């Protein structure tokens, strides 16, 4: 994921999907859902077939399925979409709302600082912690030559 301050739509949609549902809900608490929101496609859980590649980079194969919840909402002229892994309907609804609102130039800057940036910091912090814990179990080989 690109971590530059100016996120393209694909990046903010990815970030909203990768965020913890509880954090997203908290961050969007202040944003009253617009009264004219029309739920074009109410949150619905279905399946995607996961694909892998032989050897990691060879030809594709079907690996197994994954639950995905999708949702689409229209606010004014703007349509917000969301696809999030799992069965969490609220997560998909919030992500779709956020996607629609983020397309509104008059709201975008505010949402970027109040919504996206905290979510991104939190996501990066979680990943950094996990990675540094794993790094602590890195093997340091000692050889006879080194005389240890």
């Amino acid at each position, binding site marked *: 994921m690109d971590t530059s301050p100016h996120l393209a739509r694909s990046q903010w949609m990815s970030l909203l999907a990768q965020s913890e549902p509880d954090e997203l809900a908290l961050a969007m608490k202040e944003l009253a859902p617009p009264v004219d929101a*029309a*739920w*074009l*496609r*109410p949150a*619905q859980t279905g399946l995607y077939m996961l694909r892998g590649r032989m050897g990691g980079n060879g030809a594709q194969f079907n690996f197994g399925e994954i639950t995905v919840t999708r949702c*689409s909402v*229209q606010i004014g002229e703007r*349509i917000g979409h969301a696809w999030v892994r799992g069965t969490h309907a609220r997560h998909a609804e919030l992500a779709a709302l956020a996607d629609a609102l983020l397309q509104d130039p008059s709201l975008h800057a505010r949402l970027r600082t109040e919504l996206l940036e905290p979510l991104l910091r939190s996501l990066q912090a979680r990943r950094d912690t996990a990675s540094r814990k794993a790094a602590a179990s890195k093997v340091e080989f000692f050889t006879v030559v080194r005389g240890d």
Partner: protein
Amino acid sequence: MLAAFANPVFDSQRTFRELLQAMARPAVPRALPVLPPAPESVAPAAMAILLTLCDAATALWLQQPVGNALEHLRFHTGLRVAQTAKEADFALITAPDAMPSLQSFAQGELRYPDRSTSLIVQVQGFRNEAGVCVAGPGIRDQEMLHIEGLPADFWTQRAALAESFPLGIDMFFVAEQHVLALPRTTRLLEH
């Protein structure tokens, strides 16, 4: 962009039940329980059937691919678009007087008679009087049936299909909120 069923799971289940009943009792109109919003060219009753029966594994052929009908259907069902009528699992007929011949749709294969095109035909109306006389499984004795707006040779074409049974075509006719089914098992009786 329009919404579809308000409760996708329950609405499509209720619709499916009615379609099942319609197929089990051919030639008798049944009211569909939910009529979803639909783009201009598509009747809400036809939309209810498509939302219920189509998904990413089915291909649809549109007689008149006008406006945003296709976009709307793909958005809500994920269905595929059939390039020709023969490749279609479902076909939506919006102008029945100009519909292609029944021979141009898939009739299935002897090993898989189910691999045929199911037709959804939007008509002006239908009633159980005058018209043709039909009989077959699910019909007690016989039933009179008149469907408005079909091509002049429609019933001749339909009768000709009987020769290749179990191959054939299953049809739904919709008018207002009603659906009427004509499965391949329903025979036309000579007057």
